[in-house]
């Protein structure tokens, strides 16, 4: 990855297959993150983007991170987390396992704003705001 001669598409492929695949394992099951958890998640995802572009990541503004993500053809941390949640939701819809759905609803009943379902609703709303209701 430190070799400057490796072209960008290959670096993207390497980071996605060897780096981001590890970061994203179980990410879809994350409940609504706390500030500390979000900062750690942000660092993990932005770190991957910056590795792709071979950039230093210290003290970069959000705009710079957004530009870097666009350049590396990668998602921003929160969007990535939301996408993972929606992906898991689609899997759940395909299976429609009674116990799993009961567990999700029970978790929402107990944890409310700390529940996975609450995070999923936020993800869907964000998705709607980006691509529209259709």
């Amino acid at each position, binding site marked *: 990855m430190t070799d400057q001669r490796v072209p960008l598409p290959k670096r993207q492929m390497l980071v996605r297959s060897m780096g981001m695949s590890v*970061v994203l*394992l179980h*990410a879809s*099951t994350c409940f609504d993150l706390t500030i500390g958890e979000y900062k*750690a998640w942000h660092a*993990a995802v932005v770190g991957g983007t910056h590795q792709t572009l071979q950039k230093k990541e210290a003290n970069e503004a959000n705009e710079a991170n957004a530009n870097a993500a666009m350049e590396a053809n990668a998602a921003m941390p929160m969007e990535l987390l939301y996408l993972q949640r929606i992906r898991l939701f689609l899997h759940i819809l395909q299976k429609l396992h009674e116990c799993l759905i009961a567990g999700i609803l029970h978790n929402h009943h107990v944890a409310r704003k*700390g529940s996975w379902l609450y995070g999923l609703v936020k993800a869907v709303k964000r998705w709607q705001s980006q691509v529209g209701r259709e």
Partner: protein
Amino acid sequence: MAWTDDLTFAIMAKATDLTKKVTFLLSIITDTMAEHAMKLSYGQGKTTVVLAYRGWKAVRERQKMEKQMGNKIALPTEHYGCLEVPVVPYYKHLGGYILRSGAKLLEIRVRQALAMQN
């Protein structure tokens, strides 16, 4: 929840009844496994218990577990006599860390470190 030889049981009870119910469940599991010629190994990184006390008398029950019981559950079994099962703050299941507080910070940091290793 089961995946090949990885097995997890979730149990919910009042804080005051939690230890009793977990002990009862573990006794059934251990003896049922024994009847199928399988012996569970109890210890750190093996079969453990994660207890998350919440609500009424939760603090008192947690302190009781930590101070009086030394973070161990005495488990009476039919086939092996009395066993000791450690109570741990977190455990690893299918590569993911599950903390008793439900926090994901450890999981995210471990994932980041593993990704950097690659």
